[in-house]
């Protein structure tokens, strides 16, 4: 029931490490089933390569259900491939045709250096969160969860921003390699909730400062990030972040 009959040509980016040059390498694959996920197609490729005594392609992946944010392939010029609102691991081969040539590259951004083949280093995102993407509450200090009612629409909006999986597709697709969609999603989530108010203006300043320090570019409102985000994170978050940033710099008593 599984063997399929799709034949594909893959052009896959191979790069030994960050100090060597990479190149696209061609691979022919046959017997691919339309029910396979894109990564399962790569499993088939790697099994072939291992059996031939060659080195398999290194790529990041883990949960394979679209939530961990680890998979990160740039497929035919689009992060996570041709379908909207899906990650690479949730992309299935039925989205391609028999005989297709598929080009697969890593995320490309100065702040995301290539580690090997299709794997990049996204630790810059962690450092941006560490700079302020939290509410400072130690364990054991919380009041009863229902003491502070939160309007449903605010809670829902915060949730929508919080749905970001930190995959970095926004950065990969942006011509400026800007991380503003990612950063603004976290800032928005916390700015929309009453718990996030005490640190609101401090947070936006420190996270933006770290974002700049990591070498991410600026936003020029092309909207590619929103179009390619597998979780549909809205561009409105960037507007909210910019408002908060301006408020912090010009109005807030607390500038850092």
């Amino acid at each position, binding site marked *: 029931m599984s063997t399929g009959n799709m034949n594909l040509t893959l052009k896959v980016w191979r790069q030994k490490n960050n100090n060597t040059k990479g190149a696209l390498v061609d691979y022919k694959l046959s017997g691919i089933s339309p029910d396979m996920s894109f990564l399962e197609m790569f499993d088939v490729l790697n099994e072939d390569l291992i059996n031939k005594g060659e080195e398999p392609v290194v790529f990041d992946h883990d949960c394979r259900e679209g939530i961990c944010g680890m998979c990160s392939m740039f497929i035919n010029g689009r992060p996570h491939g041709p379908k909207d609102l899906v990650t690479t691991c949730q992309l*299935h081969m039925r989205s391609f045709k028999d005989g297709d040539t598929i080009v697969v590259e890593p995320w490309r951004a100065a702040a995301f250096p290539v580690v090997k083949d299709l794997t990049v280093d996204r630790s810059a995102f962690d450092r941006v969160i560490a700079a302020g993407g939290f509410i400072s509450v130690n364990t054991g200090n919380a009041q009863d969860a229902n003491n502070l009612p939160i309007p449903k629409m605010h809670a829902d909006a915060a949730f929508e921003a*919080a749905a970001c*999986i930190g995959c970095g597709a926004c950065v990969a697709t942006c011509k400026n390699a800007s991380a503003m969609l990612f950063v603004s999603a976290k800032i928005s989530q916390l700015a929309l909730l009453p718990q996030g108010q005490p640190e609101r203006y401090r947070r936006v300043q420190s996270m933006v400062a770290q974002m700049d320090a990591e070498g991410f570019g600026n936003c020029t409102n092309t909207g590619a990030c929103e179009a390619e985000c597998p979780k549909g994170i809205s561009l409105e978050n960037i507007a909210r972040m910019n408002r908060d940033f301006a408020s912090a710099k010009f109005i807030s008593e607390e500038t850092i």
Partner: protein
Amino acid sequence: MSDINSNIPEGELTNKWTKYKSSVPLVNPSNKRTIEVIIVGSGLAGASAAATLAEMGYKVKCFCFQDSPRRAHSIAAQGGINAAKNYQNDGDSTYRLFYDTIKGGDYRAREANVHRLAEVSANIIDQCVAQGVPLAREYGGLLDNRSFGGTQVQRTFYAAGQTGQQLLLGAYSALERQIGMGKVEMYTRHEMLEVVKIDGKARGIIARNLITGEIERHFGHAVVLGTGGYGNVFYLSTNAMGSNVTAAWKAHKQGAYFANPCYTQIHPTCIPVSGDHQSKLTLMSESLRNDGRIWVPKKKDDTRKASEIPEDERDYYLERRYPAFGNLVPRDVASRAAKERCDAGYGVGASKLAVYLDFKANTERYGRIEASKAGIHNPDKETCMRLGTAVIKEKYGNLFDMYAQITGENPYETPMRIYPAVHYTMGGLWVDYNLMTSVPGLYCTGEANFSDHGANRLGASALMQGLADGYFVLPYTIGAYLSKEISVKAIPTDHPAFVEAEERAVGILNKLVNIKGTKSVDHFHKRLGHIMWEKCGMARNAEGLNEAIRDIRALRAEFWSNVRVPGTVNELNPELEKAGRVADFIELGELMCIDALDRNESCGGHFREEYQTEEGEALRDDVNYAYVAAWEFKEGVQFELHKEELKFENIKVAQRSYK
């Protein structure tokens, strides 16, 4: 009967934890600054413990194999987290959560641990909301709840179908805050390969930097493993591809007992296998059973489409067999019932290994309510379905999208096809009341330990346990041990014990790359998974288990002589990582079968075909098997059984009934 001490405090069940907390020895703030704790794993159990211990003032090092702590597999938990808040005023209480969990676990969990879990459950929700975790709310601004299996109250808090993600990101943000303050040193893309023991106590770990292949030595006054479950022993499971048992297994080989390894949870509602290429299975949250009705055709080998089968020719077998709990029976019961129908020839879909999960009736019901709210009287069916679909979409939208993406079918129009799949492992490293393993100074939290779920975990209880352990239990209990360690200075890592542990780890890596055999790691993993699923899966029997043990031993020999691991040890080499993990899974698989063979009864997720009631329900043997099976590793992959007797002083042990 017991030959191991679980260190449960004396006194009334309801006072044990309170009294323990107030009398446990403390470590003063200046001493905390010099005490180092290693945490392996950054999921709910690991990240919450790392953040909390750092907040308390300890020096913490945290390790994960992923590129960021935010990617730990807790992120994929969908449905929710239980807490005894009684916000719905439906009669919930700490005792009721405790009772449901013990009963749901088929009377194979420790009373004192479970009661403590129920006590701290409410604190978890408070903590998460304070961190900015956007749990679902009602229009009045208060938190919403839903039902999960095995309970008759609504105590499950949720964030759409992404509860695990939101809770993990909460713990991750707390962890990153400590990292930013320099109080936690984070080691991503690192895998623990050995526990270092000095004078019998855990004093550190050997870890491999997965990018460079460098082997590193790390000292800690104590080591905590929050490394998750071992469901990937079955190859196909709902676990992430990287989820593994290696850290726990290395600890086991250094003296930590492994408890109840045969207790595995097969989740009833997963997307069925579509072919041999399949690399993992995807869960459809249990929360769907709130609104989905499970059925198969009444006629055998019925090839009609679901929509063509009239109502009176459908067998809603869960509602038929278990009228009191219906579609919300616990997972083990629902899984076996699905297997029973499919084995009997009533399965649906191309493989016939699936049952329907149908939302039509409840979509219509919701639509009727919405119509009434909108002032539409006597709405037609179409209107009801249209309005109801919007409600279903809001509740489960992301799950429906995921189902459509994977199967290519639209679940709003046709019922989902589902089948059970390996999801969670109740067994794990044995721990005492303090969450300490049988190796002093080595702790284990979350799914990686065995402690709270008995033979079957209830839905929405894994997130509860992971965070309970990490935020509210371990930070107290570890103090009892560390208070005696304040005079111990950091041990230099050139100590012979570190050298020796590193040699063990390096020896295995070198051996793996030098076999240069002919079969890939996945080849062996798939074969192991096949043996485990067929012989040690949803139903087991003595004959099959004996065969499995023999087959796994042969597989182990073949693996070590014929596996092919390309590349070298000094580089990023995912095949080498997988090889080490599969080597450990093979040994674990054997122990699981040994444990399943030893337990001559059926309980929870462990169903021995020889031991069932006339109606096909699990038949426990409380006289002979009311114990935790804690296995000690012996040279040459041998295992010795130790027993911890389970005493039920507050709950009357009974045949579990959901009828």
